[in-house]
């Protein structure tokens, strides 16, 4: 991946009176990257996206696109295009006219405009629907038109504001794959705003997780999921077991902790690590704990008792009480060995990988 910076956001703050929708956000997005802004509603992700698009102005800080500062440049002169959450398909124009809307201003040669529109429609698998009226489209088709309309402008960056939230689950999953493939085909920088962590994990090269107007963590999906910097990020991306541990040793980059029930573990210090007296919080994802059947053993194992069981079709969630831990552990186990049949109250042994235990910052 080329390392050229496409978007540089430098300490951007957007305040509405006393309320800060975005608080001192800095990040840079590389050329050709699929970047996601992920967070719950009201976290400032849409505000940031709209400021990149030019529909909102930072209270302080600056935004540059491809090295050009964007201060004072209106939305219609920015080298970016957007797919709106409502798709904003012009209802008085047909598909072709919608897609060609922005090209009209470029005064292209006759034939060229048509060629580019057809090409864009082909790209989103809408060939042949050019004459269809805007009001006769399905949700998925509207989304494709919005995509084609933006891509036909050959923008340096494509902004996507929750583009899949209006679609039903199956279509959404299908579009995730298609969007990712499309991005790789055209090589344009994509910035996606979403509150759906699976969507962000499945599609992005990198993700910025945001809470309350602040960026909590910027990292690749796997890193975000496996090594969340704090409990908030960890929780937002899925289930996480938290374990209190005592710090028994420390050097520049790592700490050695004693978890009592799970033994001694050496783990990386997260970015914002602050010592809370002599203790630290560790996290482990439920699927990183495995049930040990019958006589099987593991290098790292812990014994406990099943106190609850929830069935989810292909998997089962087991709630396991471990002597010495203040809270029971949540374990996700596939059902191919019969985890769904483990009786409540049964003794159980769990295997774990100490590397999967990560220390939480803050």
């Amino acid at each position: 991946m080329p390392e050229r910076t496409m978007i540089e956001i430098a300490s951007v703050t957007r305040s509405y009176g006393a309320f800060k929708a975005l608080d001192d956000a800095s990040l840079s997005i590389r050329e050709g990257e699929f970047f996601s802004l992920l967070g719950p509603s009201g976290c400032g992700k849409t505000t940031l996206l709209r400021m990149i698009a030019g529909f909102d102005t930072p209270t302080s800080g600056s935004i540059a696109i491809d090295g050009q500062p964007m201060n004072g440049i209106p939305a219609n002169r920015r080298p970016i295009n957007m797919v709106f959450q409502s798709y904003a398909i012009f209802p008085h124009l047909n598909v072709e006219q919608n897609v060609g809307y922005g090209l009209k201003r470029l005064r292209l040669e006759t034939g060229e405009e048509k060629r580019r529109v057809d090409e864009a429609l082909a790209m989103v698998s809408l060939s042949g629907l050019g004459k269809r009226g805007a009001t006769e489209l399905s949700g998925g088709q509207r989304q494709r038109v919005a995509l084609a309309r933006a891509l036909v402008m050959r923008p340096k960056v494509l902004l996507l504001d929750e583009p899949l939230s209006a679609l039903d689950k199956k279509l959404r999953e299908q579009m995730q794959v298609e969007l990712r493939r499309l991005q790789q085909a055209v090589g344009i920088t994509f910035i996606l705003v979403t509150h759906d962590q699976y969507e962000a994990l499945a599609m992005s090269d990198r993700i910025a997780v945001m809470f309350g107007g602040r960026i909590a963590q910027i990292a690749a999906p796997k890193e975000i999921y496996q090594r969340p910097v704090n409990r908030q990020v960890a929780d937002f991306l899925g289930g996480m077991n938290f374990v209190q541990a005592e710090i028994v040793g420390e050097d520049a980059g790592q700490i050695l902790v004693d978890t009592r029930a799970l033994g001694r573990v050496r783990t990386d210090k997260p970015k914002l690590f602050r010592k809370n007296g002599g203790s630290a919080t560790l996290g482990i994802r439920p699927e990183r704990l495995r049930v040990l059947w019958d006589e099987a053993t593991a290098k790292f194992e812990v014994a406990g008792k099943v106190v609850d069981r929830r069935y989810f079709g292909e998997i089962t969630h087991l709630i396991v009480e471990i002597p010495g831990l203040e809270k029971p552990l949540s374990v996700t186990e596939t059902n191919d060995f019969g985890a769904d049949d483990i009786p409540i109250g049964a003794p159980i042994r769990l295997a774990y990988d100490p590397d999967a235990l990560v220390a939480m910052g803050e």
Partner: protein
Amino acid sequence: MTAMRKLLANWLPAYAFLYIAFLYLPVLLLPVFSVNASPIPKFPLTGVTLDWYAGLPRTPALLDAAWNSLVVGIAASLLSTLLGICAARAITRYRFPGRRAVSGLIMAPLVLPEIIVAISLLLVLLQLGLSLSLFTVVLGHVLICIPYSMTVLTSGFEGFDRSLEEASADLGESAFGTFRRVTLPMVAPAIVSSLLVSFTISLDEFVMAFFLTGTDPTLPVYIWGQLRFAAKLPGVLALGTLLLAASFLLLTLAEMLRRRAERRANPQGGVLA
């Protein structure tokens, strides 16, 4: 319970049809008697004639009044639509303190006794030293047309998705270009509908015109003057019939456009009959 429902189900439509009859029958008597041979409007009809219509173009005073109505109607509908566009756009697009109060004031002529609005206006215009003319009638008509224009325009503007204008800007279009290529085409039906509706109201309006006109009567004022003479009644009925027909046509057109505007604004919105 089912008996009750059955009764309701049968009773209500019957009532509805009776009600429509009550609304329309009196009005429909105008055309009926306008082609009656006898000058006195009573049953039984004595024969069918178009004489009363034929007499209309031969009355110079009536032609003058028709011309006056046309001039006033065009001026009033243009002005009230223009002012209505400003107000409707401001109210549907912006939030500002006093928004409700201002729109309440603009809508007020709808619920005030017309005579009071008319005589107040009359007093002020006379105090200002303006002589009564078709211009003063236009002012009065604009005042009472704006609430209707606003209603029609607001329903056309409402639900206009703001991101459509943003999408246009995003695709490189300037503010003026966005207005010309997105906003205007989408609200055009509502604007035309407002023009038609306010023209119809001005055409039919009597009280304002009665108080505010100088020596040039509009059609309703002319009709009012003719009502004193029993012999003129058939001609008035014929004229009234033409006015009704014109109003009906204009309003039907306006309604069709209004619905089109509404459908454009909310493409997913259900099918209204």
